[in-house]
């Protein structure tokens, strides 16, 4: 491969950190390194930097700065929101509602809570991955203490009707959490207008550093700590603050939300050309997710008769970075629970490819993928025993 240009189309897995963000972070390593809890002047620089990032983050969400709590990322935020509300409100009830297509940070947390005596309803989704507000409302019982539905899905990019879902939660006086890890910068968010009580985000999904995230917690929400200890984050999240990371998050969210419509339009145009080109060039291909209500950069497609990992390896060989299923679980090629929840047959879900576009991409990248991908699919189909015949039924005796 050597000096080959890398075509990075996996922005939903993670993004590069913008140079402006790195520049903002650097002074907080060696220079303004003081512990923000300390009293002396150099520590005040750290504290001011965190305060500024809190304002930037709050502004991006329509929240108040003192409703923003910094964490180590999306997974911690999800764990905290769900376990924290569950533990603090146990006396009111033990029922949680979520959806079948959540990220594992939500699903596995819910499964843990099931072991702890909570009951969890996993709402189904339609063929496009949409949760039906009417179905949510029917699932509510007088024991329901939390509804957690993701803002936008990381695999198929489907954007959920958050304001409607939030309104239902509000009507029934149930806390509403949304995992907005994939939504930041792609869709305008207003936690007040959308009735959101808690919202998770993760900096490395919007050109900020890895290992930094935030949880928005509306004033008055009863929540137990996830990480107990020192009095940081107004006694809600212990641990010496990751100042440079927090500064990076603040700068990144400010940049990525400065012009959401303009930014999305540019990426959507590239994505749409890619979708059209791929579906035109490759037969037996199916677009996953909702054609309209989807993240601007997301393209998820299934190619029959072939398997995803082998596609990724060939694409990598051409310098194209993509993923199949969720990046977080692609170390193990389980069929995606998201695709299955939309009703896609298992064997077809194995042949899914996710290309997520972002600021690393140009029109030229789209050209290259349109040239390379059909060849890769053809090559793999040529060696697939399924290509001429249809899939065979039966158990999994390898």
């Amino acid at each position: 491969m050597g000096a080959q240009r890398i075509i990075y189309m996996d922005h939903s897995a993670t993004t590069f950190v913008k140079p402006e963000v790195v520049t903002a972070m650097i002074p907080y390593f060696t220079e303004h390194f003081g512990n923000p809890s300390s009293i002396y002047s150099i520590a005040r620089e750290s504290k001011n930097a965190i305060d500024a990032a809190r304002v930037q983050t709050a502004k991006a969400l329509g929240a108040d700065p003192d409703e923003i709590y910094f964490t180590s990322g999306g997974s911690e935020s999800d764990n905290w929101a769900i376990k924290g509300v569950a533990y603090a409100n146990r006396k009111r009830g033990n029922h949680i509602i979520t959806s079948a297509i959540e990220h594992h940070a939500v699903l596995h947390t819910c499964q843990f809570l099931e072991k702890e005596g909570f009951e969890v309803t996993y709402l189904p989704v339609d063929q496009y991955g949409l949760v039906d507000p009417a179905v949510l409302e029917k699932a509510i019982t007088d024991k329901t203490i939390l509804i957690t539905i993701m803002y936008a899905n990381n695999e198929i990019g489907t954007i959920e009707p958050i304001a409607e879902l939030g309104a239902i939660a509000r009507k029934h006086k149930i806390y509403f959490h949304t995992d907005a890890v994939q939504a930041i910068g792609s869709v305008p968010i207003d936690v007040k207008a959308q009735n959101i009580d808690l919202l998770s985000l993760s900096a490395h999904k919007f050109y900020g550093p890895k290992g930094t995230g935030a949880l928005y917690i509306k004033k008055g929400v009863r929540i137990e700590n996830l990480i107990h200890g020192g009095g940081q984050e107004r006694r809600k999240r212990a641990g010496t603050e990751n100042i440079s990371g927090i500064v990076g998050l603040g700068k990144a969210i400010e940049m990525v939300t400065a012009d959401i419509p303009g930014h999305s339009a540019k990426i959507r145009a590239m994505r749409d050309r890619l979708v059209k080109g791929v579906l035109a060039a490759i037969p037996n291909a199916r677009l996953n997710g909702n054609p309209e209500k989807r993240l601007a950069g997301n393209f998820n497609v299934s190619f029959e008769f072939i398997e995803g990992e082998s596609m990724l390896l060939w694409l990598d060989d051409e310098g194209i970075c993509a993923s199949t299923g969720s990046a977080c679980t692609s170390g193990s090629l389980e069929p995606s629970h998201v695709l299955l929840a939309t009703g896609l047959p298992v064997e077809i879900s194995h042949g899914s490819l996710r290309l997520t576009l972002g600021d690393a991409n140009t029109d030229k990248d789209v050209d290259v993928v349109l040239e390379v991908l059909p060849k890769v699919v053809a090559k793999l189909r040529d060696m697939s025993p399924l290509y001429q015949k249809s899939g065979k039924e039966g158990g999994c005796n390898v």
Partner: protein
Amino acid sequence: MYSDKVMDHFKNPRNVGEIENADGIGEVGNPVCGDIMKIFLKIENNIVTDAKFKTFGCGAAIASSSMATELVRGKTLEEAWEVSNQAVAEALEGLPPIKMHCSVLAEEGIHKAINDYRVKKGLEPWVEKNPHSHEHDEMTCEH
């Protein structure tokens, strides 16, 4: 993740294709699990004179098919039967633990093709010495 050898056999798979009027054919795996291997053998005088495959699956599945067909070519049926999944994995300079089942699949594909030949010839099919079935139960679709 993969050794250079695996990548070589993935990118330049040996023996891809079908053998018309093959003497033995073995198909193993399941699309639901994400991999299917179909092994074709040409057998003359108890010798595997040609071996080909078609595979739907991950990089390791393709490389294992490629390597297994290489390993059995020119061997007697008895020798070919002895080509174990470990032998395939070793020849590939190792496979990640979660991918070892791909080499198992290759071994079983060869076995199935050999027994297909034996049954067609009116011979008793050979039985697996170390059936991997327990392993499979645990690993069902776990890749």
